């Protein structure tokens, strides 16, 4: 019995050794200087997930969910993160709040390096962060009343007790447009929009500095979506929140954000102010995203082309620039060399071999 166990254990560790493991976390630079203005700063962030392919799988594969991403979020701004499913945008959010550990890279929050924090320190810090998910119903315990849902975070972080706690809860309820009589009800008794308001309330009770909105309105109807977006906007200006808005819907991100970053298959391909991105998008992927996003205006004529092909897998991402198999301007260099994510002035960053300045002009692509 013990022999088999030992064999099994050695077999396991052997398979671990043989698997090509991505580089471990590099030693942390102690003297990293983070400007005070940057509430969140991310440097060389990587997250690889191991694919589980059963016990007979010979080869371990890695999902390159987030692969060398750098950016910062200023205090009080709304930072939009757009991309298609599987591009790693949600993983970035999870890494920031510490729900998963990065494979490499550093995450700074208000000057602290979160990758150095242990669980307890992380738990304390998480008071200052909130997350709102796409499906509120799956983020609630169905057996808890709204009162329990709202009071739990206050209790856990020991913010207030008794009457003071009730005071906070009632204040928050008013803020999200719910009534005190709703407190004794259960999540399933509410509509999708109301549930999302409860989820917002649960974040508000802690009065955080930073809130991650992960597809906050994707599960909602247009009219309810408008209500929630307005509420999020109002709360931001009232409490001075900093938002990271993660969405696949460019229209929503554009409506809400100050700066927008575009991700594609684990990489950030472009980052700019929202007006700059709309007027002067330079990465071919961003340009096609802007072209294809449907806009509720029948008079608008489509510019540019629809890109061909599928979104590649993050297990074996394409070599060089990950967009090259679908890019209308791809040249041999794109297949061989990975483009650097570099600034081209005016806070505009692009990862493309050919874009050298903000005045770069692409020829009109041929089909």
């Amino acid at each position, binding site marked *: 019995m013990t022999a088999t166990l030992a064999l099994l254990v050695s077999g396991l560790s052997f398979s671990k050794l043989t698997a090509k493991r991505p580089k471990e976390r590099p030693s942390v630079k102690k003297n990293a200087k983070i400007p005070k203005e940057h509430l969140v700063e991310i440097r060389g962030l990587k997250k690889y997930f191991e694919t589980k392919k059963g016990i007979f799988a010979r080869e371990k594969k890695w999902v390159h969910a987030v692969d060398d991403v750098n950016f910062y979020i200023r205090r009080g701004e709304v930072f939009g993160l757009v991309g298609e*499913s599987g591009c790693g945008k949600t993983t970035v959010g999870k890494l920031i709040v510490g729900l998963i550990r990065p494979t490499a890279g550093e995450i700074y929050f208000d000057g602290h390096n979160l990758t150095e924090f242990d669980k307890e320190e992380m738990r304390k810090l998480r008071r200052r962060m909130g997350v709102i998910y796409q499906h509120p119903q799956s983020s609630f315990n169905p057996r808890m009343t709204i009162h329990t849902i709202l009071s739990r975070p206050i209790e856990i972080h020991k913010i207030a007790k008794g009457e003071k706690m009730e005071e906070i809860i009632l204040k928050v309820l008013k803020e999200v447009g719910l009534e005190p009589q709703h407190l004794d009800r259960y999540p399933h008794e509410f509509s999708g929009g109301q549930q999302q308001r409860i989820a917002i309330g649960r974040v508000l009770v802690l009065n955080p500095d930073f809130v991650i909105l992960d597809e906050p309105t994707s599960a909602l109807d247009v009219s309810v979506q*408008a209500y929630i977006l307005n509420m999020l*906007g109002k709360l931001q200006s009232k409490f001075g929140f900093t938002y990271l808005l993660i969405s696949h819907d*460019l229209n*929503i991100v554009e409506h809400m954000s100050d700066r927008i970053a575009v991700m594609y298959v684990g990489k950030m391909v472009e980052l700019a102010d929202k007006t700059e991105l709309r007027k002067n998008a330079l990465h071919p992927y961003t340009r096609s995203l802007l072209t294809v996003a449907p806009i509720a205006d029948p008079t608008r004529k489509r510019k540019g082309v629809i890109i061909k092909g*599928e979104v590649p897998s993050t297990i074996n991402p394409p070599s060089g620039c990950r967009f090259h198999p679908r890019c209308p301007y791809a040249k041999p260099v794109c297949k061989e060399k990975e483009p650097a994510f570099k600034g081209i002035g005016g806070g505009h960053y692009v990862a493309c071999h050919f874009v050298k300045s903000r005045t770069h002009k692409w020829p009109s692509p041929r089909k």
Partner: protein
Amino acid sequence: MSETLLKVQGLKTYFFLERGTVKAVDGVDLEIKKGEILGLVGETGCGKSVTAMSILRLIQSPPGKIVEGKIIFEGKDLLKKSSEEMRKIRGTKISIIFQDPHTCLDPVFTIGYQIAEPIELHQVIEQHLMSAKEVPKKVVEMLKLVRIPDPEQRVAEYPHQFSGGMKQRAMIAMMISCNPSLLIADEPTTAVDVTIQAQILDLMRDLKRKLGTSILLITHNLGVVAEMCDRVAVMYAGNIVEQAEIMTLFKSPKHPYTRALLAAVPKVGSKKKELETIPGTVPSLITPPPGCKFHPRCPYAMDICKKEFPQMTKIGKEHLVRCHLYSKSKGGAT
């Protein structure tokens, strides 16, 4: 362009549940012309999908039942057909594409087999349009038509080897394989990414041009409607509240609900910080409010709105509105 393909008149589909009767579709009138794309827009639970399923007579009964109305397709009432006749119409004359291709394809059969099935059944066995030997060639041809790369190899693959966008394209191939004159697309791009959505919409437009298929496009996305449709019908709580040509609807929407819906969409380049919202919630379909179903949320509600259900009023070429504001005899019965 003006020939009518499908005419739905006064369609009422109810679901008889223990807690009451859900009036999911409560008097819908629709008309689809040959070769046009008609958009059917509305929020969750307004009865768009039930309308589509009623047209195909695929309402689960019990609890559902089409209680009233006519569905005239190519001059004949579909509601009077036997189930055997309906079976022959589905797939050959009218097809449907659903939102989620993952649940529509059978995981244990190859894509090729599944596309061949309707062709074999309808075109080989029923209509004798081709011999069984020609079917594999036709399947490859269909896959080519929906722009699946290497169709010769792909026919032998299983659904799990296809990506989401490719599955949806395979579904389209299956549905158009027998040249239907009407294609119902129920939220065809809701489950796929934006770039893939653009490819699928482009494909549908292309097919309409090539094959002359009429399309009933059901969606909640006003952007998709603006890009695709010739005409639009807006649904609210089981009724069509406004119907117009695409330009008219987006430029001068008349019904307060349509206006609110359009104002609620974030606009590109708009400086406005706040979006318009619609107060209140979607009414219950078991006990809808009396009179106009939108009146509790309507900023223009008058006394008559609480009492009387408004009739469809024609206010322009191809422009119909169900609202008392535009009734010819305000305050009186129409």
